[in-house]
C-alpha cells in the first residue's frame, strides 16, 4: 500500500561527485516490494520547491525498517535534500510504481543488469534479490567519467561487473552497448535503467530477448492521477492507448511502450 510518512534520516553520505547516498527509516519500508519501485520526496516544508522528487529505491532492509536511495544533487530540490542530516525527517510518499519482475528469471539462469549513471542504484537491490534467488548476475555499469563512478564494490560482490566511462578515464572506454558486444556477454534476461538513449539502443540490439527497462519521465502526482508521465504503447504507437510511467511503470517490458 502507498503511504505518506515522515521518515528519519539514519545515514547520509556523499559517495561521488554530486552523488549522495541517503538511508531513511520508517514503517513505509514494510510496504516495499520488487526492486525498481521508487519514492516521491518532498524536500522542503514550504512551497519552493513545490513538487515532490521521484527517486528510486536502491536497497531495502525490512528488518531495520530502512531503505537507501542514491541521487544526484543538481537542481534546487535535490540540493536541498543533500543538506539533510541524520535525525532530520524527510516527507516520503511511496512505494510507487511496479518494479522489475524477479519472477521472469529462474534460478540458474543468467541475468544481465545494465545501468547508466543515476540509473545504476535501483539495480543494486535487484541484483541482491536475484542472487538470493540463485540467479547468476552480471553487471555493466556506465558512467560519464572517473569521479562519477559509484557502487562498483557493492556490485562486484554480487557478480561480474564491468564499468564503462564515456571518456575512458576509468574501466572500459565507450558505451555500455559496446562493452556488452566486446565482452560478448550472454544472458537469459536483461534488466536496465538509465538515460533514454541508452534504453533505446539496448531495446534495438537486444529487444528480441526478455528485456525489462526502467523509464524516467517528468512527474506531477507520481500516483497516476495527473497524466503527466504517459507514453504511447507499443501496439498503438500514435493512438490514444497509453501507459503511465509512475503507476504502470516505471519498469516496462521491451516493446510494451514507445521509448
Amino acid at each position, binding site marked *: *500500500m*502507498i503511504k*505518506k510518512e515522515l521518515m528519519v534520516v539514519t545515514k547520509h553520505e556523499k559517495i561521488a561527485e554530486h552523488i549522495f547516498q541517503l538511508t531513511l527509516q520508517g514503517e513505509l519500508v514494510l510496504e516495499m516490494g520488487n526492486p525498481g519501485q521508487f519514492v516521491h520526496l*518532498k524536500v522542503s516544508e514550504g*512551497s*519552493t*520547491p*513545490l*513538487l*515532490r522528487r521521484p527517486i528510486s529505491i536502491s536497497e531495502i532492509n525490512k528488518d531495520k525498517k530502512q531503505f537507501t536511495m542514491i541521487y544526484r544533487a543538481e537542481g534546487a*530540490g535535490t540540493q536541498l535534500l543533500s543538506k539533510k542530516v541524520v535525525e532530520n525527517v524527510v516527507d516520503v*510518499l511511496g512505494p510507487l510504481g511496479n518494479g522489475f519482475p524477479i519472477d521472469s528469471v529462474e534460478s540458474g539462469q543468467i541475468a544481465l543488469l545494465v545501468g547508466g549513471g543515476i540509473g545504476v542504484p535501483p539495480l543494486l537491490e535487484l541484483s541482491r534479490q536475484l542472487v538470493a534467488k540463485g540467479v547468476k548476475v552480471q553487471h555493466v555499469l556506465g558512467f560519464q567519467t572517473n569521479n562519477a563512478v559509484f557502487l562498483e564494490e557493492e556490485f562486484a560482490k554480487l557478480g561480474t561487473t564491468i564499468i564503462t566511462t564515456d571518456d575512458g578515464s576509468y574501466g572500459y572506454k565507450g558505451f555500455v552497448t559496446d562493452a556488452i558486444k566486446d565482452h560478448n556477454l550472454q544472458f537469459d534476461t536483461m534488466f536496465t535503467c538509465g538515460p533514454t538513449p541508452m534504453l533505446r539502443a539496448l531495446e534495438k540490439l537486444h529487444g528480441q530477448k526478455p528485456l525489462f527497462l526502467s523509464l524516467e*519521465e*517528468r*512527474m*506531477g*502526482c*507520481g*500516483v*497516476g*492521477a*495527473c*497524466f*503527466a*508521465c*504517459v*507514453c*504511447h504503447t507499443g501496439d498503438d504507437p500514435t*493512438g*490514444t492507448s*497509453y501507459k503511465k510511467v509512475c*503507476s504502470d511503470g516505471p519498469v516496462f517490458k521491451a516493446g510494451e511502450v514507445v521509448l
Partner: protein
Amino acid sequence: MLDINLPGLSLKNPIMPASGCFGFGREYSKFYDLSQLGSIMIKASTQEPRFGNPTPRVAETEAGMLNAIGLQNPGVHKVISEELAWLEQYDVPIIANVAGSQIEDYVYVAEKISQANNVHALELNISCPNVKTGGIAFGTIPEVAAQLTKAVKEVSAVPVYVKLSPNVANIVEMAKAIEDAGADGLTMINTLIGMRLGLKTGKPVIANKTGGLSGPAIKPVAIRMIYEVSQAVSIPIIGMGGVQNVDDVIEFLYAGASAVAVGTANFVNPFVCPEIIEQLPARLNELGFEHVTECIGRSWKADAKTAHYSS
C-alpha cells in the same frame, strides 16, 4: 457547519478536488474514502478519446507548476461507462468537466454526461490553455463564451457552471456575459499561461512550449478575480487557484467563493482534501464563525453575517 447548497449540488462540505488534478478518483481512493469529499470535479471529457500532448508535460516554477496535459481522456462514452459507473459506489456528487474545440463538441459531451446518475453539475472548460484549436477563444471573448453557455444550457440535464480563464483583461465583463447567457454558476480560476526555458537547452521545458501555471503562485490573482466577480454577479462561484491549506480555503470564501477546489496541492499531499475538511470546523470556530457560509464574501460585505445560502 460545513454543508452548503449550490445549484444542483447539496454538499456535505465546500471542499473538492479540482478538475485534472484528481483523475477520475481511482488513485486517491486508495488513500481515503472519497465519500468524505464535498464533490469531485473529474478530469475533462471530450467527445472522442484524446492522447493529449507529447511529454514532458509538466515543469516546476517558483511556488507553482506548469502543465500541458492536453486534455487526455478516454472520451465521454468510456468516462460514463467506466469512470462514472465506478464512482457510483461513493456517496459524492460529481461535477463533470466538459471540453471541446467547437460548440458542437461541448453540446455533445454535455448532453451525454449530464445524464449520468451521479453527475450533479457540469463545469464547462472554456479556458484550457493547452489545446491548440479553438479552446482558448471561448475563454477570452465574452460573446463566444455566452453563445457556448446558451447552447450547453439547452441540452444539459443538470446545472451548468462555467470555468473562467484568468488570461483576460476584464474578468467581470466575461463573468457577466456568461451569467446573462444562463449559467448557474462559475468556477474560477483556470491556469495562467506560462513558460519555462531550460538553461542548458535554451528551449521550452514543456514539449507543448507553453503550459498552464497553477499552484500557490497564482493565488493572489485568483483571490482578486473572485473578489471582483462575486460582487458583480449573483450566481455562486466555486473558487480555486493555489489552495494548499485550511486558511487558503477561508481566504477564498472571504473573497466571495461559495465552495473551494484544490488542484495542484493534491500532488504535493494526496491527503490534502480530507485534511482540510477535518481542520475546517475548528478553524472556523477559532475565527468566530458558526457556519462556513458566514465567511462567504466577507471581504466586501458589510459586517452583517451572511445568511445560510440555499439555491
